[in-house]
């Protein structure tokens, strides 16, 4: 019979190996948890969409009106505002983009990467899809005359591509 507070060395030695085994399992489990939790996913969809919009609004190769070969930010050349131009300017983008240009009671719509844009129905799932919808007040140059307009840019991107 054990005395209260006594230390049974033989029993402790017998338990050493099962304890080491359990410690080993716990160690591996903790290591795996640390390993996976430290592999953080940085979602850069918002920065990326901002960068691509800068290309639309500032790059001379996109839709800007040029005066004496100098692109004028904020003024869209209506003749350049077509699918081919935008597709060249944003070549191989992973965003599905819909441009809606409203000016003088006219509406012009262009969609890039339609299949991705159609995924906007899943915009409620913010973990899977990045969605953005913004209006920009711009000027439109049509045959030399400047008109007020609003350009709506809707951008959709599947986040699984960013993982």
């Amino acid at each position, binding site marked *: 019979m054990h005395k209260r507070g006594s230390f049974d060395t033989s029993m402790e*030695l017998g338990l050493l190996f099962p304890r080491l085994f359990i410690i080993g399992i716990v160690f591996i489990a903790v290591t795996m948890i640390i390993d996976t939790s430290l592999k953080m996913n940085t979602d850069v969809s918002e920065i990326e969409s901002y960068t691509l919009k*800068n*290309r639309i609004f*500032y*790059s001379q*190769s996109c839709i800007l009106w040029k005066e004496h070969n100098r692109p004028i930010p904020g003024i869209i050349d209506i003749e350049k505002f077509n699918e081919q131009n935008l597709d060249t*300017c944003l*070549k*191989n983008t992973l965003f599905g983009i819909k441009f809606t240009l409203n000016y003088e009671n006219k509406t012009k719509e262009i969609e890039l990467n339609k299949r991705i844009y159609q995924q906007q129905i899943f915009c409620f799932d913010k973990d899977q899809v990045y969605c953005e919808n913004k209006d920009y007040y711009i000027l439109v140059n049509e045959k030399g005359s400047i008109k007020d307009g609003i350009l709506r840019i809707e951008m959709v991107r599947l986040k699984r591509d960013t993982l």
Partner: protein
Amino acid sequence: MNKKGVEEAQLLLITYLVLNVVILLSLLYIVQKQLDGPDASKTFISKDHALILDTLYNSNGDIELAYSSKNKYEFIYKKNTAMVKTEKLTDTPASYKYSENGIYNPIDISLKNYDDKSEKSCKILFKKTKTDAVAIEKTSVCNGEQAE
């Protein structure tokens, strides 16, 4: 309990204590390695490089950007994808896609930010001029020192 039993018990407790310290130090080492090592940053760097290329393609003027990294990496830019690999041969590259600008020639470059014989990692230079395509090259500036 006799004297021998007391000694054995103390030895056992010391063994457990040493084991605990070893496990704690191992875990701290693993965490530090994961946070500091080249593997931890390569996903972030691939995204960073893709965003840099997106930005270069936006520019109307000339741009030069030197990118430094304390770790050794191999960078591959192909088919509008920026890939980053560590120097380990079996390493799976981290990749992220960028959007090209159709008026420029697509990039197809592979380069390392280190020399095989050197321990230093060098800066990578992203360059775009008004007329030429985007160029990426290794500079002679390594680990904050100007090479001769």
